[in-house]
Every structure is written in C-alpha cells, then in structure tokens.
C-alpha cells in the first residue's frame, strides 16, 4: 500500500465519515455507563467519560468527542474541551484509581478550546493538573490517538503507560493550521506545515512518543469501522495484559521514565 504523507493523512482524518468515539465505544466496550460533570463547574460534552466492561474487566473510558455532523459537533464544541472537560477527566481517573481499574483514553482533538471562558476558568491550570496527576495515578493508563492529537489539549489525556496511534492519526505540538499561521502568518499553508512538523504515527514511533501503530483498513478507518475497532480492541487487550501484572511502583517509575528520557540536547 502507498505510504501517505502527513498532509494526506490530515485530509484523510477529516473525512466526515471517519469513525469517532461514538462509533468505537459500543464496538470495543460493553455496558458503557456515561458519568457526567466535573463536580465543580459543569459538564463538558467535548469529553465523554464513564465506566464499561472491556471483555469482562471493568475499565474507565475517557474520550474526546468529534461530531459526525454539524449538530453533534456543536454539541461537543468540535472536540475542543474547556477546563471542566479536563477536570471531569481527572475526576474519573481518580475514581478509577480508587476502584483499581485501568483507564483507557481515546484522544481526538484539534486542541483545547481557546476562548474567554476557557481562560477565565483556568485552561492552563486544568491541563497542567492532569499532566501531573496522571503521571502518578496508580492504575494502568492506555491512550489511543484516533485522529487528531492536537497540542496540550491532547496531552492532557495522553500522559500514560502506553500510547498507540491509529495508522493515519497525527499528534502534534500545535495543529498544522496553527503552526502555519504563527510561523508563516498564513493558515492556508497547513499542508506544508503538516509535512514539515513530523506528526505521523511513524514519526512519533521513531521519537519514542508512540509505542504502537494500530493498523487501519486499506483506505482508512472509515472503510471498515468494525475492523478498526477490533484492531483497537486487540491492542488494548495486549496492553492491559502487559501493564496489569506490574506493581504500582514499577508502573509509575516506568511511566515517569517514558517521558523523562524524551529530549534531544548536547552538553
């Protein structure tokens, strides 16, 4: 199969029929029971969370919600969370820790929302808190990037023991569009930005950021959602098996080292 460039992948993951968490969750999990709210301000529809069975094991699922049409996207703010979305995620992660069940994060966002209310309620603080707290959460955390992993808004659900990416997913420090508009003052150059930024699953595997690439069916996930879901399930199954036998101390130490060693410098 022909290898796609980063900008081709960018177009592919924007196809409106690309499956979202609303498609995947019923195929991967059973008895998903959604839990709402951050117990502080409100409920953010850009982040969906709850408890479900994975095979027969209870897990906590935290997912960023891309809409499949305009109406769904309006509801989920185009998958751009506000602080309360991140705080809901943290609340559910802490709950998972209490009941000793793994946390599965499904990442799919162009980034955290940028707006007055988001700033007022502490977008930076909410993300920072998640990074810190997820780093020491005493249960396995597995993150899967389904489409776009944009910036700190994605990272807030991606401090984990293992990170997998769907074959055509991208994960970047800023959206290619944002990059183009900052560097070249021209957001229309997002394809060039995508190709420059090294954001594909293969790039991230090489950098040690991504641990596993999950195959998509020929042409992309939308061509066979069922098959993609079963590939994701298989990966989650293996990852849980690898992680759940580890003592919490070892798990946390390895999680810290996973990020600790990322960086390229001379001294």
């Amino acid at each position, binding site marked *: 199969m022909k290898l796609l460039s980063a900008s081709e992948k960018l177009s592919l993951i924007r196809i409106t029929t690309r499956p979202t968490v609303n498609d995947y969750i019923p195929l991967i999990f059973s008895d998903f029971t959604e839990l709402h709210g951050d117990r502080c301000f409100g409920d953010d529809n850009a982040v969906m969370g709850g408890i479900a069975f994975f095979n027969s094991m209870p897990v906590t699922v935290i997912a960023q919600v891309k809409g499949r049409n305009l109406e769904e996207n309006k509801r989920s703010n185009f998958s751009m969370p506000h602080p309360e979305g991140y705080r809901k995620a943290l609340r559910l992660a802490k709950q998972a820790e209490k009941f000793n069940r793994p946390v599965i994060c499904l990442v799919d966002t162009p980034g955290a929302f940028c707006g007055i209310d988001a700033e007022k309620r502490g977008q930076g603080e909410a993300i920072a808190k998640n*990074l810190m707290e997820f780093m020491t959460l005493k249960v396995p955390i597995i993150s899967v990037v389904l489409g776009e992993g944009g910036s*700190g808004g994605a990272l807030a659900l991606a401090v984990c023991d293992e990170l997998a990416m769907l074959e055509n997913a991208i994960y970047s420090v800023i959206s290619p569009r944002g990059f183009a508009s900052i560097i070249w003052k021209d957001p229309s150059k997002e394809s060039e930005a995508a190709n420059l930024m090294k954001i594909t699953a293969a790039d991230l595997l090489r950098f040690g950021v991504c641990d596993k690439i999950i195959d998509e069916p020929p042409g992309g996930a939308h061509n066979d959602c069922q098959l993609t879901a079963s590939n994701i399930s298989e990966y989650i199954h293996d990852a849980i098996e690898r992680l759940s036998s580890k003592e919490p101390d070892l798990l946390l130490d390895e999680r810290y080292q996973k990020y600790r060693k990322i960086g390229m410098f001379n001294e």
Partner: protein
Amino acid sequence: MLEDLLKAVKDRFNDGILHHDKESKREELFKCPRCRVDTTVEEFEKNIKICPNCNYHSRINWQERLAYTADYGSFREFDRDMTSRNPIEYPDYDKKLKELKEKYKLNDGVVTGCCTVRGYQIVLGIMDSAFMMASMGSVAGEKITRAFEYATEHKLPLVMFTASGGARMQEGIISLMQMAKTSGAVARFNHAGGLYITVLTDPTTGGVTASFASLGDVIIAEPKVLVGFAGRRVIQDTIRQQLPDDFQSAEYLLSHGFVDIIVDRKNMRNTLSLLMKLHSYKEGV
C-alpha cells in the same frame, strides 16, 4: 536599596546588555503596553523596569532577575553548556540558535541553579524571554526537570520565575512532551514534600502555563504581567469580540482564583524568604 541592586547588576554584567549611551537614553521612550503612557528609558530603568505610572512589571533579563532575587555571589549555575539539537530537522533552527547564543551569551531561554535568598538555600529557575520567547524545548524541559530532581534529592525548596511563549514549535512533538516531563518532575517533588513557588512574570503563556507554571504550592505573580493559555489574538479571532482590558493580567488571574499573591519586584526577596520561613526551612542550612 534598589539603587544598590541596580549597581550590582551593572557591575557584574557590564556586557552591553544594560549598557546604553547615556544621551540617547534620555530621549528614548518606553511606551507601557498596559497604560500606554510614555516614560523615558532612563527613568524606566531606574525604576527597575517597572512602569512608574501603572506599576506594570516589565520584562528583565535573567542576570537582572538573579541580581534582584539571590544573595550576592551565591548563585551556582547548573547545566550551563546544555544546547538543543534539531529533532525534527527544522530548517535553519541550528543557525537561529547559534545566532541567539552569540547575541545573548545564553544557550537557551532558561537558567537554573542553586543560590541563597536572605540566607535560605533554594533551587532557582529563571526564564529569559529574550531567547526565543523562552519557549520550552528539549533544553528547558531537561534543565527544569533536573532542577526539580536536584531539589528533591537535597530537600531544597524550588523557586521558578516563569516567562514563556509556550512550547518551542521548532522542536515539534518533542517540545510538547517537555510539558509532561516537567509536570512529572513536579509530581515527584511534591510527593517528597518539597515547597515549590512559581513566580509568574511577563509573559507566561501556552505550554508553560499548561504545565509547571500552574503547579506551584504558592503561585506569585508580578503586577500587571500577562498570563494565559491561549494567545490574545487567537482568542479574538475565534470569538470576534473585544476582550476585557485586564484579560489575562495577573490581577485577572488573582480574581479568578489562579494566583495566590501579587508581589512587587521590590518585595520579592522579602516574600520568598518569608515563605521559606513559614515552611520551616532554616537559614544557612
């Protein structure tokens, strides 16, 4: 007192950064970005780069910050020679870094080390926005992480003066990961019971706000500085409406519950040393 500080800075770092032609300085004007009132650069600098009209605490370089913060001669720098590589082979990144290194005699936008403040031993981090807006890439991430690890090991409090444009885009995903890395280092330091004080200075934004800058046990800000996650322009473009004047200022953050205290530069050493004392750290240990 302030005059002394200023003189100390000049004596120690008379390398051109602060040295201007006296004549031109009298005429050069500093336009305050907050109140838009002009001050002569001479008066502005005499007032340690604080707007005499509205008390906006403007940017200072790391040497000035060090001189206003640490006991004279007590600073020992960590990892001075660390320099960034070019992980995503970003065009001209190496060249740009080289130019900045020569211009500012600085290898990256963050300086770390240990020093004393009124006799209290601390680990200190200072971000200098002159160097690529002190954006966080591999070097900032590694230095800050090592500073936390050193403080954890030696049971010292850590004070971080933040200023940053956010993640360093030229290092791609590697720079994003520095947010996780530094936040992890804060987590470990917290578990060991260390005191972490952040001082938000102008401007603290993006990935630094969304990581270690927001994680202090005590979060201090200098008056009128800009602190936020998203850039003002980005927000304005998204919502297409005028932003409140004080939006993303230190005072705005204080009133919304994200800053503990706003402290004038002139009182920073007092406040820091008092906080050490209140946390039972001992002088000279």
